[in-house]
């Protein structure tokens, strides 16, 4: 049994659930406390730094048909300004006359500066061990340059207001075989899946806690996961159609959730279970 549990993912998962039950059977408060200690112990030495380093290299290294770097990419605070840029995204960009989130803007820059086709620039939004994603690395680096910045997503432009309103609508939109919405799991206090607390994204504290802690190195996957990935996986868990990478819906939902986090300190990339 022991050996098989190690071998087979499904069986290991079952064993894990049994272990979880046993743990919960103890004093729940002390369990939560011990899990908190576990999380604390991981903070010092976050493998997300490996992605940040690779992303910085990708940003600075000339690449693509135009053999140019991304150093002139304007993330909203001027060409080449990375520091603090993520804390003010998504935002309206006059040069394309639309609202863009970080991923969309990076793809835009990889098209305009590197000379990639839009399809090439968005070909691999999320990485896996044998197929790494440049997007993951670039997002890790850009977001790390906003660590400590205060979330300040702008809403002055009409298109920014429009994106926020659309994102809000998507958040409450029920559909799919389970008749789920984002709000089904994220609009009440003190809910959780197994040991994972679910943030109430309709309240400021919950919205801030959630948005400011992505991207994260997920120890369960051994991968850096972006906020985009988080949204996509929520859609999968809702049994929704796939959320198109860099789509208007994705940008709008991000705009809604990012702006709800305004006023909070950005803390990512973090490390999570």
């Amino acid at each position, binding site marked *: 049994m022991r050996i098989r549990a190690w071998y087979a993912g499904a069986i290991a998962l079952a*064993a894990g659930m049994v*272990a979880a039950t046993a743990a919960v059977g103890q004093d729940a408060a002390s369990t939560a406390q011990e899990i908190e200690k576990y999380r604390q112990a991981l903070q010092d030495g976050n493998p997300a730094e490996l992605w940040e380093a690779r992303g910085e290299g990708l940003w600075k290294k000339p690449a693509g048909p135009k053999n140019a770097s991304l150093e002139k990419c304007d993330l909203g605070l001027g060409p080449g300004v990375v520091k603090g840029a993520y804390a003010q995204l998504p935002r309206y960009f006059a040069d394309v006359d639309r609202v863009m989130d970080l991923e969309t803007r990076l793809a835009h820059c990889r098209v305009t500066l590197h000379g990639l086709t839009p399809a090439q620039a968005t070909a691999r939004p999320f990485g896996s061990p044998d197929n790494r994603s440049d997007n993951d690395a670039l997002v890790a680096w850009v977001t790390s340059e906003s660590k400590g910045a205060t979330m300040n997503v702008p809403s002055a432009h009409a298109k920014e207001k429009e994106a926020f309103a659309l994102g809000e609508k998507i958040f409450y939109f029920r559909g799919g075989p389970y008749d789920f919405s984002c709000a089904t799991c994220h609009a009440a206090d003190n809910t959780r899946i197994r040991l994972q607390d679910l943030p109430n994204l309709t309240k400021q504290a919950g919205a801030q806690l959630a948005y400011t802690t992505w991207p994260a190195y997920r120890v369960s996957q051994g991968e850096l996961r972006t906020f985009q990935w988080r949204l996509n996986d929520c859609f999968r868990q809702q049994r929704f159609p796939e959320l198109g990478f860099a789509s208007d819906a994705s940008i709008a939902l991000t705009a809604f959730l990012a702006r709800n986090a305004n006023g909070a300190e950005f803390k990512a990339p973090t490390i999570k*279970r």
Partner: protein
Amino acid sequence: MDSGRRDALKAGGSVSLLTLLAAAGWLKPGEAGAQGAWNKAAFEAKSIPDAYKAFGGAPAQAKEIAFVATPDIAENGAVVPIGVTSSLPKTEQIAILVEKNPNVLAASFDIPAGTEATVTTRVKMGQSSNVYALVKADGKYYVAQKEVKVTLGGCGG
């Protein structure tokens, strides 16, 4: 492990002879100097007593060995922080063993003079288990253990 050995042999060029000998289990730790030794017998041990044998002796319990920054409960077995510190004089080696892993030995550290007898790393755990800190000090082996509960196995999800 055999396939690992073949891989190492195939790799050729960049690998020193010592590494090859060590990988093949022909060298005991210490024989190859600081780099290249790999205690194959210990790493293949399936139980704590077998691992003790591979290291060459049954250890005595020692309260001078402490776990630091090691949680009682790990949220995910894929990454479990383990820190070991020894206040035993002349600590020269610290090994971390996980009783219920398929191969119990996770890591062994040689501590030269001038280096503090404290190391921190992260291990995988397939399930809740006792974790052993085996310490060699002044030529003798000592041990301390701690139970770590795992809420999600290191290979599940």
